[in-house]
């Protein structure tokens, strides 16, 4: 493997050296044949919408699309668990020839009366896009028949990367917004966009806001409910986390309902505190600000001693991160800094030009920034930069372990809440557990043979 980096991909990687001006190419289709870590449009829509727990989620397509997205992401619900089922029209050969609309109608006819969901999302897949089923018409008919919103999600996989799927999901969500009654919505109220309640994270954030006197109207979409989404336009403000996935919805709501939005991050001490202060400031509420400050003081006091203990061991260690959207990377870099660690590699599957620009500005010299990396590129930099801990998703974990490097899943498979102040402590504990694990002593780390890849 003499050249781990495709010639064509060179401009998707940037190493921050000296005063060289930042430039990166991104938001483009992966090269054919690349072992890309990316997924498809359908995947993007599915991860955004599926946490809505009292809706029916029906995959209209062949079985695989449903199997691979069956409860793979720990999006917790405090009530119904219908979203943890896998429903699929399971299209077959005859459907390819004669179309799948009848099957879809039958499936909805069976499911809606039985489960009485508050709404149904019907996901389009590659095949449905090709055979030309009129998903919108089929959904309209079902909606009339059953009296609940039946929403087509135009998420054909071939349309693009996950980002295109986020957009399709936002469009689907937007059809619900504005259909409910906003009477009695408190003036100091927000919607939480872009939080999927992995490991119960949205409950942490809601509790902080409540302590400040701020009400949450709709969770978009972690532990989400259809009725809340319908009256989401009554909220005074949209808080947008994970900007990639729900930013479009925020923009649509701003245009249609004048709801302002604010980008926030709940990861790390600085960003979490800033998010709360920003909310208080937005509402121009002295009381909320006082409460926020008190909350931050208490929460930080709670976690600080332990954080500093962990920092003693972690000081000077090197981290790498490869995440879905670049926005998360900013907070992670700050969190690592709080732990005394240096970030040597920062990459994402779907970052935008402005994301990477900002990323470059907060990274230290020597940091590599990469868009849509493949495993060989990741390996090359993990070794070259002598990284101790890698933060990524499911496909990155075994690569790190094979190299004898610690790993933290900051994606679907996180097992502990990583948001909020308590989340920062959990994150630090996880990083400590993996960076300091005795297992790495059993492999010849420092005596690592020269790698062929470092050509």
């Amino acid at each position, binding site marked *: 493997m003499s050249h781990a980096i495709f010639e064509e991909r060179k401009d998707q990687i940037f190493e921050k050296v000296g005063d060289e001006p930042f430039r990166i190419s991104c938001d483009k289709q992966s*090269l*054919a044949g690349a*072992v890309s870590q990316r997924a498809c449009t*359908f995947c993007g829509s599915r991860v955004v919408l599926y946490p809505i727990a009292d809706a029916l989620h029906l995959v209209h397509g062949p079985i695989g699309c449903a199997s*691979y997205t069956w409860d793979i992401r720990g999006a917790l619900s405090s009530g119904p668990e219908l979203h943890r*089922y896998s429903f699929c029209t399971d299209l077959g050969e005859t459907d390819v020839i004669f179309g799948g609309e009848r099957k879809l109608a039958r499936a909805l006819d069976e499911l809606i009366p039985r489960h009485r969901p508050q709404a149904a999302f019907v996901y389009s897949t*590659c095949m449905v896009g090709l055979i030309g089923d009129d998903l919108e018409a089929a959904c309209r008919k079902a909606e009339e028949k059953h009296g609940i919103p039946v929403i087509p999600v135009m998420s054909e996989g071939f349309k693009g990367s996950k980002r295109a799927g986020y957009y399709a999901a936002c469009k689907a969500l937007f059809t619900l917004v504005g259909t409910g009654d906003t009477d009695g919505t408190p003036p100091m109220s927000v919607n939480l966009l872009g939080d999927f309640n992995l490991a119960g994270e949205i409950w942490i954030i809601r509790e902080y806001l409540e302590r400040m006197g701020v009400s949450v109207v709709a969770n978009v979409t972690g532990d989400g409910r259809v009725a809340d989404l319908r009256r989401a336009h009554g909220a005074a403000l949209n808080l947008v986390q994970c900007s990639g996935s729900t930013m479009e919805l925020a923009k649509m709501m701003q245009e249609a309902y004048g709801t302002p939005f604010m980008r926030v991050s709940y990861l790390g001490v600085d960003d979490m505190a800033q998010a709360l202060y920003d909310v208080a400031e937005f509402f121009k509420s002295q009381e909320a600000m006082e409460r926020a400050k008190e909350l931050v003081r208490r929460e930080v006091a709670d976690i600080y001693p332990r954080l500093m203990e962990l920092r003693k061991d972690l000081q000077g260690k090197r981290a790498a991160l490869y995440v879905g959207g670049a926005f998360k990377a900013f907070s992670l870099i700050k969190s690592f800094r709080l732990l005394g660690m240096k970030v040597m590699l920062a990459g994402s599957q779907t970052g935008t030009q402005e994301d990477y620009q900002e990323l470059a500005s907060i990274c230290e010299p020597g940091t590599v920034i990469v868009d849509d990396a493949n495993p060989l590129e990741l390996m090359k930099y993990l070794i070259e930069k002598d990284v101790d801990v890698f933060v990524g998703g499911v*496909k990155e974990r075994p690569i790190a372990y094979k*190299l004898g490097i610690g790993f933290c899943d900051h994606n679907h498979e996180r097992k502990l809440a990583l948001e909020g102040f308590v989340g920062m402590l959990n994150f630090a504990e996880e990083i400590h557990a993996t960076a300091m694990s005795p297992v790495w002593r059993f492999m010849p780390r420092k005596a*690592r043979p020269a790698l062929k890849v470092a050509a």
Partner: protein
Amino acid sequence: MLLRHTPKEINERRALTINPAKTCQPIGAMYAALGVHGCLPHSHGSQGCCAYHRSALTRHYKEPISAGTSSFTEGASVFGGQANLLQAIDNMFTVYEPEVVAVHTTCLSETIGDDLPQIIDKAGKDGKIPAGKHVIYANTPSYVGSHVTGFSNMVKGMARMAESGGHKNGKVNVIPGWVEPADMEEIKRLAGLIGVGIILFPDTSGILNGPLSGEFKMFPEGGVTIEQLKSAGDSIGTLALGEWCSADAARYLDTNNKVPCRVLDIPIGLKATDRFVDALRIIAGVSVPEEVTHERGQLVDMISDMHQYFYHKTVALAGDPDQLIALTEFLVSIDMWPIHIVSGTPGKAFVGRIKELTADLPCQVNVKSDRNADMFLLHQWIKQQPVDLLIGNSYLKYISRDEDIPLVRWGFPILDRVGHQYFPTVGYKGGLRLLEKILTAILDRKDRDDTEQAFELVM
């Protein structure tokens, strides 16, 4: 109750699969391809398919899984994927330097009608396949069959590499079916003990259960080589383990290369292993070596030691046809009653085989395959008639929890436990492990549920 939305009453379903006991073809093709030495699987379709398959296999094996994708766009979906695949083949050989690229299709490229042999042929003529390197392929439309079909199709793709040189090589082809790397290792060990030289394909041992070396190898040691696959056309015979996963490839070799084949069940449990060992013995013209007889005796010994705990225990199973047939035979042979059985994979013969194997049980046996044979139905059956034990993949854990029934994880995928990579369940040794797992589940449950008075030290 996580699955509280599942009603006990069963209504006929015609248009819907809920909580599937299957997935789609391409992942099977990808798993099979990983059992070829130096092979990079390639998914000819959208990026998502490839990402999903890699993630699912990564979760099951806890190993890095590399595979390329044609990264279809809207344009490719209209004008066909030839340009994408040609570029992909070129890129993969240039950058990742595999020995073999194994292309499989997806519902997308199949619906468009991309002609794989023609495109691969063109890639060869255009010089995009370096000398000494190979491209194998399989058509794996996701809307036909299941992951099992995809596996079988790619194995057939391997068989197409076979050449007949005129001189028999004295070896036996063994097609193991969709079993774990550890099972493939065990099959090789058994054949070695009996003294039969085999060509095993695919062979994922060493590739998906490798050590931590401090290196990331895209192509770990192991796997059947192209040389071996070529030579498979000169073997004296083929043993195909499993009708669904292996028979097609074996019959192909029989027809095209005049290598006679026998289709056996996967050697899971006493009787199926007996048949496998017997087949190897006959081919080698030897008597069964003492070591193998010894292992068999150990398995019978464990069954006899613990038979009172197996006695009439009812079991529900979900999984793939080849595995379930062998397992059902094994369970019945140790006096357990498999009474609810589903497989999402189509094939009428499955229901027939299961009915045959369970014909002597004094109870009703529910068995269903193909569409709607899913875990939703299995759960409804269990609500109607509870069982003592569940055996199947990790997705059964929802039913296990809700109905408070112990679960033995076995099959694909296992997303929440380890061991399947390292410990076989085929052969006599594998039978011991399977029984140990079953017994542990049953006895742990007994210990948990026994009253203080009935709680016993010795079991």
